[in-house]
């Protein structure tokens, strides 16, 4: 056997063994198999990757939930497989189109295309078991309760491209995005569950002649009369309809290049009449503790700070 052949064979064997070792390493935490990523699902979990997540109750687990989030231009498809639960004894698995936190829903009932009761998919439905759900935006949730140890299910998460994202929950405290509503009468919210500094960089609404910001134009106070405008919202919940409007942008803006929103949730909401192609671009970054706006005197106690 020639030296070069032996060298190649040795390198091949080394790569094999290192790969095997690494595979054992991966097996402890999650496996990338031929059919996708796989790991156990926890009673409280957040999933941001595609794969198969299996929950098996080691003891009665009566109050569990998993959040699912994808990129802004994606929607999530949830599928239930190998379901082994007892609906008659109170077990349930419910998938929700959006996120629910402390009774508040994102997207809000006003902004979501479906009525609330249609956003829940109940596996234990009195009719045929419903095992699949596709979200309308980049977030979804699953609630589950299992009484008997050993029972469980597998949740498969897939992502699909969404060419016109509307109602987005940001995965990160900083970034940039453009919300476009092309000739549709609807409202789209971009939610950032962090206190941020927000900069609106481009705004195209209604009959704007161009996309450039006009520094000479005045800010109209209160844009509610206009069917097309942008709202900047701040609040301490996820329901945008319960948040406090910080600013409205109707046509162009001057003197409002950026705003600091010291709230748990900062939202850019584009309201569209359907008559035009509306677009808003913005950037945001996390506010550090020493950058948070200070609370002014006589301010509302339960309203977060803005400047």
């Amino acid at each position, binding site marked *: 056997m020639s030296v070069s052949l032996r060298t190649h064979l040795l390198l091949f064997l080394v790569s094999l063994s290192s790969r095997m070792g690494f595979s054992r390493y991966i097996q402890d935490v999650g496996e990338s198999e031929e059919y996708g990523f796989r790991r156990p699902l926890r009673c409280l979990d957040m999933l941001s990757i595609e794969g198969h997540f299996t929950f098996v109750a080691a003891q009665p687990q009566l109050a*569990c939930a998993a959040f699912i989030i994808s990129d802004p231009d994606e929607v999530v498809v949830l599928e239930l497989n190998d379901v082994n639960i007892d609906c008659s004894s109170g077990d349930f698995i419910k998938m929700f189109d959006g996120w629910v936190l402390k009774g508040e829903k994102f997207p809000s009932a006003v902004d979501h295309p479906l009525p609330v009761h249609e956003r829940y998919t109940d596996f234990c439905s009195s009719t045929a078991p419903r095992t699949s759900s596709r979200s309308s935006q980049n977030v979804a949730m699953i609630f589950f309760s299992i009484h008997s140890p050993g029972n469980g299910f597998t949740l498969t998460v897939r992502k699909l491209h969404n060419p016109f994202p509307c109602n987005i929950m940001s995965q990160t405290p900083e970034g940039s995005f453009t919300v476009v509503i092309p000739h549709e009468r609807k409202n789209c919210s971009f939610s950032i569950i962090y206190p941020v500094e927000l900069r609106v960089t481009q705004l195209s609404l209604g009959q704007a002649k161009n996309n450039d910001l006009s520094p000479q134009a005045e800010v109209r106070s209160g844009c509610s009369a206009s069917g097309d405008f942008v709202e900047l919202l701040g609040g301490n919940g996820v329901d945008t309809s319960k948040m406090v409007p910080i600013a409205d942008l109707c046509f162009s803006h001057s003197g409002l290049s950026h705003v600091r929103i010291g709230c748990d949730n900062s939202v850019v909401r584009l309201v569209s009449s359907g008559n035009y192609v509306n677009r808003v671009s913005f950037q945001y970054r996390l506010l550090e503790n020493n950058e948070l706006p200070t609370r002014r005197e006589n301010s509302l106690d339960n309203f977060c700070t803005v400047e």
Partner: protein
Amino acid sequence: HLITLNEQNVHLNMAVSTTSIRAPSVTPGPQTLPLQKLFLQLASSASLSSTSAAVNRGWLQLTQQHLRAQEEEDGEKEKRSDDLPISLDLTFHLLREVLEMARAEQVSQQVENNRKMMDNFGK
């Protein structure tokens, strides 16, 4: 380093329902089954290059130590709450923690995928 959080009153508001959920015009207060001594243990993964193992070690370990439920009251609540929406009481702080852990897992998975891709290229 290890971050330990004690969440005393994390609630899962539940509606035990096998029927369709009515869309309320005014959202009623969700029924609450409080979880006592919900203990969350997080380890921050400072280095994303430390691979999936660090993410797993640092992942949420949810220990549900005690669930208070009154069976008779549950039965009555079950009837009343058939159509109540389900919710989870979680602070924004905890939500951000789990979100950041999920991002770390995503990055780790991407690193793994890149490694496999490079391995295939090297063959």
